[in-house]
């Protein structure tokens, strides 16, 4: 047989036992031609545009899934940041836009729609502020809408006024969804250096440098990487790195094939492939388990940052070799509530917020799906964001914060979000105040790009 039977069985095994999947096929749609001063007309325009463009998305994706026998878990849509597209709307708030997006997503049968977003890394326009102030109610009154705000870049520094504002927006969002443990905050990300072509939620939006319509694909497979490492007999770290690279290569190839076929059938440009090890609450589908397979007793022990750096770098190397279209976030995610191994590590006292922060300096994204006590002050949330933004800005990488101040919950409690969002033990935050620092506002200037020590 011209394809080696062992290779065939390896592929089958990855899907059957090791949770290999295409996490998402995300269609990016530009809404820049939908602008109108009357928000009702704007809403009609975007509904029409989204549902027309995405009409065949789910059907085609399902066909590809059965053709190749590879599960495609989510179908999603990302749109132009609404703050940009709706800038000219005279309405005082943008909540009705979120509701329209939700309706368009439901009617297109996709799982999520991202792009209720603003880019305010240098400063905010009137439209940006309208959007940000609409976030709590928008996330409370919709199911599928995801929101993100970019508050910092390496080229511009950190907009501390926006960071300060986001702390209270997160608090309000949690309070409005208090009956569901503050789940609104699980759909809200604060970014530094946000990528414009990221297919993963909650941070996906269709960037302003993107084409009219595009297909981006997100592939996952922490379980496959974990299984590959576990098969090695007493490996050294060079051998582990080599194995991760080869595994990442295979996963990426599959994602690229699926992405190209979906875009060919839909007649839509293929954008990028994002190879990110995105864990799910399923046992074995865990990034923490990979780090533990490298030899750490628990994720969070000393050595975790080094192990994660190795993992993230090897994933990128394997991915870059396999596809010329690698983009988005591409690396390892460490969302606490979505990763059974991370949850165990927090419960065992091995993994703290401080250690997670250190880990984010060497991997994708940042402090992700972390639940903290409901009485955490807004200024402390802002300060946590500021720290994370600083790591991204100085290291010229994307970082983000998705944090849930779970209403009425304390350290020792946990919150249950269900599905891919999982459950999270409440983690302690510092009780010392950051309020004066956060209230100062202004901008932390862009960092110098030389003298890097």
């Amino acid at each position, binding site marked *: *047989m*011209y*394809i*080696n*039977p062992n*290779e*065939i*069985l*390896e*592929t*089958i095994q990855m899907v059957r036992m090791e949770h290999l999947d295409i996490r998402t096929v995300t269609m990016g749609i530009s809404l820049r031609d939908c602008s109108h001063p009357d928000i009702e007309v704007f809403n009609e325009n975007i509904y029409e545009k989204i549902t027309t463009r995405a009409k065949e998305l789910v059907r085609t994706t399902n066909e590809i899934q*059965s*053709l*190749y*026998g*590879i599960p495609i878990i989510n179908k999603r849509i990302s749109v132009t940041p609404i703050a940009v597209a709706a800038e000219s709307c005279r309405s005082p708030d943008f909540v009705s836009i979120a509701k329209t997006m939700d309706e368009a997503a439901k009617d297109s049968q996709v799982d999520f729609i991202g792009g209720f977003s603003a880019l305010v890394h240098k400063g905010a326009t009137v439209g940006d502020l309208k959007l940000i102030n609409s976030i709590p109610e928008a996330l409370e009154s919709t199911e599928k809408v995801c929101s993100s705000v970019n508050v910092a870049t390496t080229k511009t520094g950190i907009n501390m006024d926006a960071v300060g504002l986001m702390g209270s927006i997160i608090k309000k969002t949690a309070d409005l969804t208090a009956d569901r443990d503050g789940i609104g905050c699980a759909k809200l990300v604060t970014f530094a250096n946000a990528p414009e072509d990221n297919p993963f939620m909650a941070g996906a939006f269709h960037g302003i440098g993107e084409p009219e319509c595009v297909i981006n694909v997100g592939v996952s497979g922490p379980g496959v990487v974990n299984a590959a490492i576990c098969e090695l007999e007493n490996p050294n770290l060079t051998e582990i790195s080599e194995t991760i690279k080869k595994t990442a290569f*295979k996963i990426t*190839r*599959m994602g*690229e*094939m699926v992405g190209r*076929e979906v875009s060919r059938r839909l007649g839509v440009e293929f954008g990028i492939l994002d190879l990110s090890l995105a864990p799910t609450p399923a046992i074995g589908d865990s990034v923490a388990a990979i780090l533990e397979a490298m030899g750490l007793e628990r994720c969070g022990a000393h050595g975790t940052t080094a192990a994660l750096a190795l993992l993230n770098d090897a994933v990128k190397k394997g991915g870059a070799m396999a596809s010329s279209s690698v983009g988005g976030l591409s690396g390892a995610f460490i969302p606490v509530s979505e990763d059974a191994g991370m949850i165990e590590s927090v419960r065992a006292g091995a993994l703290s917020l401080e250690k997670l922060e250190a880990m984010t300096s060497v991997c994708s994204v940042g402090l992700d799906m972390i639940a903290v006590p409901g009485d955490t002050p807004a200024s402390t949330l802002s300060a946590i964001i500021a720290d994370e933004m600083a790591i991204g800005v100085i290291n010229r990488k994307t970082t983000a914060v998705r944090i849930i101040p779970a209403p009425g919950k304390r350290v020792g409690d946990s919150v249950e979000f269900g599905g891919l969002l999982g459950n999270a033990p409440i983690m302690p935050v510092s009780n010392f105040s950051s309020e004066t620092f956060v209230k100062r506002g202004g901008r932390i200037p862009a960092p110098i790009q030389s003298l890097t020590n």
Partner: protein
Amino acid sequence: MASSRFIITVIGSDRVGIVARITSVMASFNVNIVDITQTIMQGIFTMIMLAEAPQENFDLAAFQEAMSAEGKSLGVEVKVQHEDVFRFMHRI
């Protein structure tokens, strides 16, 4: 996707008649076997076939459904996947 060739894998415990019954479903859909190999992997019966579907009027979904239903009644797992998935993953 240029070809209409599929990899069919049958995984489960060995018993009399697996090949006969699976291939008769294939014949009823006019699907031709190009290559076939079988092995016992960790005590589990594994059959792999490279098969070619007719160019026209081939209903993949119905074929997949019939194959997996036949597999179920035999107590084995049957998967029908386009060959590209294996070529792409392991070859440049």
